[in-house]
């Protein structure tokens, strides 16, 4: 899957997050994940959906290491390429 496809899929998942009230189109690769507007629960909901959508399991360490949206896309791109 190409990088921009991954980004679009992530935007789609963000739009489906009921508890988030954000402008999804304003999110770029440089957006900080903790600046998106998640709380400690909604970020878990989002990560669950990311794993289900892409079929890529994430380790607990991966979750906390990701700082920017770019890191998440990098991680997914790398796992999907295997």
């Amino acid at each position, binding site marked *: 899957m190409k990088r921009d496809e991954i980004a679009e899929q992530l935007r789609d998942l963000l739009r489906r997050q009921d508890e988030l009230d954000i402008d999804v189109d304003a999110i770029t690769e440089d957006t900080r994940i903790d600046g998106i507007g998640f709380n400690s*629960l909604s970020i878990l909901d989002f990560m*669950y*959906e990311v*794993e289900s959508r892409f079929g890529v*399991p994430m380790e*607990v360490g991966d979750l906390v290491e990701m700082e920017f949206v770019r890191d998440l896309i990098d991680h997914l791109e790398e796992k999907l390429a295997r």
Partner: protein
Amino acid sequence: MKPLVRLYYLVEYAAAHTLLQAIAVLPLRPMLGLAHAAARVSFLLMRRRRRIAIDNILGAGICTDERQARRIALAAFQTFSVMLVEANIARRRFTAANWADHVALRISAEAEAALRTPGQGLLVATAHFGNWEVMARAVSMIKPVCAVYRPFKNPYLDELVSANRSGANLRLVSRKRAESPTRLVRALADGEILAIMMDQHAANGRVLVDFFGRKAWTTKSVAMLHLTARCPLLLAFALRTGPLRYEVHAIGPVAYERTGDRERDVLAITQRLTRAIEAFAREHPEQYMWGHRRWKVRPEHAAV
């Protein structure tokens, strides 16, 4: 903050501070006597809380007789009062060398391995049963504990109590304070125990489960953390067996495979844990905190 509210908060703080100082200097036995007496007085004076406890006990089917429900409710008040005293004493007395003289682990070999493996994050769900403070204090001697707590409205009291409940290996994270959204996952990634109470009414981030035959809104945090962080999950309680003597009982590690349906997974895990809390509270009702409005559910959601 309005001046009268501030004054009230300061008086409340002063009372709590004095109480904590008294607990620190008096021997255990007289303090337990005072705790029982204080619980009786509270039981008489806190009419609303008493009524909630009795109604919850009857509604849960623990007994059908009002007098018996009243006896259990009083015992539950006493358990809470004793918990406050013994938690404070444990804070001063427990060390890595002596905590096991007071707290026995009655958990499976698998659960104990998860607890004793350095660097292994461990998710522990618990409930207002026995003495959750002593349990956290004891296991923090084995592995660092990060406990999620609901802060008091009174900021002075909150600071005092938080400082009192924390320890070298035991830190508290407010449920309400805005921090990084990954702070709970980070605790697990850092190999800590992440302890979360899951038996109070949840106003948001919740799922509706059966609890004692009635629907109750329950936090979905535990289930979501288990599903996302994939850390071992235990449900644990500290049962009081005597003065400053406890047994930690645990269910798990719970293993749950994702189905891909988030809502379904969250419901299944939360219901399973809630049933286990119910079973334990049914077995030892005098050690469960009944004075909480647990079933705040609109009629359209109430049918089981």
